[in-house]
């Protein structure tokens, strides 16, 4: 493999650290012979490398034994922090109350539990909201307010594909007015004025061909 001048320059630190492969080493040695520029660069890096023993010698290393002792003190302090002390203290209790308290303590101490509870709450809320019927789907079958005396009230269910104008025609023909509904299953409460019997009105509506059901409303 042939190495260009840039590649050889990049190898200088590796050359000084003895980290070149045999092939690279040969190429580098040849480069040093051929290129005074490369040799000058090597001298610059050598000066840097040569400063390290002095830099190390001048470094104020702390007494390592003492430092290690301080590290272990710190580790011991953290391992016997108040939180852990409480946990240890709980371990020696044996009554069921203590065990129950310990269960809650260890269970809910973890933030994972809090996050899990929060996630479950969000899921439940989403499910409940998604399952709620559209506004207006549930209509009471009770007439809104007290109706005047003398009115007949009936539950009426129109055929599902009945057009609005046909519904209106049946109601007008029978002197009926919708006073409630529709419910989820399509029931309306209609009020009829006049002195016709409930049964007569029901029969007339059923004969219209667009009413599927007529029943007593209480």
């Amino acid at each position, binding site marked *: 493999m042939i190495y260009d001048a840039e590649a050889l320059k990049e190898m200088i*630190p*590796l050359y*000084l650290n003895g980290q070149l492969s045999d092939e690279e080493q040969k190429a580098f040695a040849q480069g040093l012979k051929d290129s005074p520029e490369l040799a*000058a660069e090597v*001298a610059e890096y050598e000066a840097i490398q040569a*400063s390290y023993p002095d830099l190390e010698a001048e470094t104020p290393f*702390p007494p*390592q034994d003492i430092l290690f002792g301080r590290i272990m003190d*710190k580790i011991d302090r953290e391992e016997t922090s108040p939180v852990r002390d409480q946990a240890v203290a709980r371990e020696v209790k044996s009554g069921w109350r203590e065990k129950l308290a310990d269960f809650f303590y260890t269970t809910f101490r973890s933030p994972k539990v809090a996050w899990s509870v929060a996630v479950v709450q969000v899921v439940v809320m989403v499910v409940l909201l998604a399952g709620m019927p559209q506004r207006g789907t549930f209509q009471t079958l009770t007439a809104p307010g007290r109706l005047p005396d003398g009115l007949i009230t009936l539950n009426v269910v129109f055929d599902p594909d009945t057009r609005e104008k046909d519904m209106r025609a049946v109601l007008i023909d029978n002197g009926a007015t919708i006073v409630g509904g529709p419910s989820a299953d399509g029931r309306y409460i209609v009020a009829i004025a006049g002195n016709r019997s409930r049964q007569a009105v029901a029969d007339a509506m059923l004969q219209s061909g667009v009413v599927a059901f007529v029943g007593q409303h209480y």
Partner: protein
Amino acid sequence: MNRATSADPDHRLLKLVAEGDRSAFRELYDATSRRIYFYLYRLMQDASLAEDVQMDVYVEVWKGAGKFRGQSKVTTWMFGIARNLAFKTLRKQRSHANIDDYVSLEDPDQPDLDAPDRQRIVKQAMTMISAKHREVLDFVFFHQMPYQEIASLLDISVNTVKTRVYYAKAALLKTMDELGVTKDDL
């Protein structure tokens, strides 16, 4: 790339540390503490800060030994912890300074040239270049890390490591020039 090797003796020690073995922890400490301290001291230029951070490094090593996944050498992992803690501390200490441009407080315009010793000036210049440049030169020439390992530690590409080494040397020569030593004097 999984570079964990069973040949890394520190890996065996770290496994024992993860199990709470204090004597293994001491052994690991003895094997690495000088390098870690030297790195921290060189980076932070403050013995007291370096000592404090070194303590934190080993506390983190003790606590995090079980999390080591073996994807690098143990020392590389430890240098990573040291680096994070050191830069975190430096940011607190010098919240108004750009850490990458952090240099020692020595004034390059006031060099002590009474003893024109070029090696002394190289050393002085080595304390005056930016932390980032000082760090990469240390990794290459003191810790003798391969480029790949440095790239992994600094989370940069190998080519960036090479470039950074080059610019670190250039910055050093420039600083030396300011101190009165030209590269021809080397």
